[in-house]
């Protein structure tokens, strides 16, 4: 993997956006442009995923679903423990921040896809399902952690049942998730010739549109990065350490349990290492109004997202390569054992 192969346009545009913010350029993309590109990218990634899934055995997708649920539930708990014990962060902020790390960032996922595409590396169809699934469990665990925190704090227990129901409904009617699932279903349903008609729009020009999106996200990340100080050293370190922990879990699951290819392991790792800015932040704003949004937004967008995009993805890929070349996945090991 030479340096030039790291110069993926998507990542360079992200850097350009951060640079623009750094030098206080007046560059600013219209807010609606951001929304439009997000809509486009989510549909594109969903359609592509659905098309791929149509060609593969649905039963084989199940392990990915389980993994997604496990990530969504497990990672926030790990994050919460670290925040509370190591960082002495107050319980409600810890709960709100944790929830984000159980979920995923579609932007990071798409950057990873662009990175793999740039290297010509293929990957399994299943990680995109995980992308769509992981938002909801993380929100619910966030709510459970918040409830637990409130009990610690001895405050009057809020009516969490109602909130839970409300948020579950929200998680499923959330526009972004709906688009992702809907596009996936459509990609799965339509015939090959029909798909060919819409492929130029949703696939051919996808990578270019992603560049504009990442340039915009770079500016946004740069803006949040500048709120760095108000967040404190511990939290910033956490914003770099937590994706590494998630990545370790992801590498393990992707290789040993799911037995994916290098590309697939990389994507699973990115899912585990990334942290949400789709459905979780608004859900936490609603469910844990006591938490300071600037904490979780700065961490999510200003620290973890750029870290993953610039440093994380190439490293996760290198690690996946190493794992894949060095160890057999457990499924293979078991099978080999059985066959003997």
């Amino acid at each position, binding site marked *: 993997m030479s340096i030039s192969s790291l110069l993926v346009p998507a990542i360079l545009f992200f850097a350009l956006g951060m640079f623009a913010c750094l030098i206080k350029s007046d560059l600013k993309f219209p807010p609606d442009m951001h929304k439009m590109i997000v809509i486009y990218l989510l549909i594109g990634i969903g359609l592509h995923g659905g098309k791929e899934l149509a060609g593969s055995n649905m039963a084989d997708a199940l392990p990915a679903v389980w993994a997604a649920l496990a990530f969504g539930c497990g990672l926030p708990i790990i994050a919460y423990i670290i925040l509370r014990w190591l960082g002495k962060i107050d319980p409600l902020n810890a709960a709100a921040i944790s929830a984000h790390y159980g979920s995923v960032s579609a932007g990071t996922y798409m950057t990873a896809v662009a990175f793999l595409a740039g290297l010509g590396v293929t990957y399994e169809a299943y990680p995109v399902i995980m992308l769509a699934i992981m938002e909801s469990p993380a929100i619910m665990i966030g709510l459970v952690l918040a409830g637990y925190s409130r009990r610690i704090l001895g405050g009057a227990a809020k009516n969490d049942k109602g909130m839970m129901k409300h948020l579950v409904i929200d998680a499923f009617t959330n526009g972004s998730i709906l688009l992702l699932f809907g596009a996936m279903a459509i990609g799965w349903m339509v015939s090959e010739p029909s798909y060919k008609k819409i492929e130029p729009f949703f696939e051919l020009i996808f990578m270019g549109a992603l560049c504009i999106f990442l340039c915009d996200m770079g500016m946004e990340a740069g803006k949040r990065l500048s709120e760095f100080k108000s967040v404190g050293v511990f939290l910033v370190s956490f914003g770099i350490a937590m994706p590494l922990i998630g990545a370790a879990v992801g590498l393990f699951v992707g290789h040993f349990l799911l037995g994916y290819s290098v590309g697939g392991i990389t994507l699973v790792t990115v899912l585990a290492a990334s942290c949400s*800015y789709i459905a979780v932040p608004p859900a936490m704003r609603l469910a844990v109004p006591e938490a300071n949004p600037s904490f979780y937004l700065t961490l999510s967008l200003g620290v973890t997202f750029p870290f993953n995009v610039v440093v994380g993805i190439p490293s996760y890929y290198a690690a996946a390569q190493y794992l894949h070349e060095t160890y057999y996945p457990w499924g293979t090991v078991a099978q080999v054992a059985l066959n003997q």
Partner: protein
Amino acid sequence: MALEPGMLLRMKRIDVVVTGESLEHVIKMFKDAQVRGYTVIKEAGGLGSTGERNPEDYILREPNAVIVVACEETQAEKIVKILQPELKRFGGMCLVSDCEWVTGPAVSY
């Protein structure tokens, strides 16, 4: 002001600011109170008891809406009476002030 009598009518002006999600409710309540005219400005931002709200924020997307009603005093009282118990739930703010309606446009108050 030194204008012909009848050119200006003493009226009340009600300014309401609520979150985008509550806008529909507020308008429904206005209609229940037989309000015949209001003006709405969406995509406002602000600061309040629930923190900062910015309609351009990429992630939280939290627009406020400003609603202005000009009406006669009795009507204003009616509106305030209907709206007030709900304001606690809606949050935001509701201001009442004096104004004069320049006659001319079709009556919509």
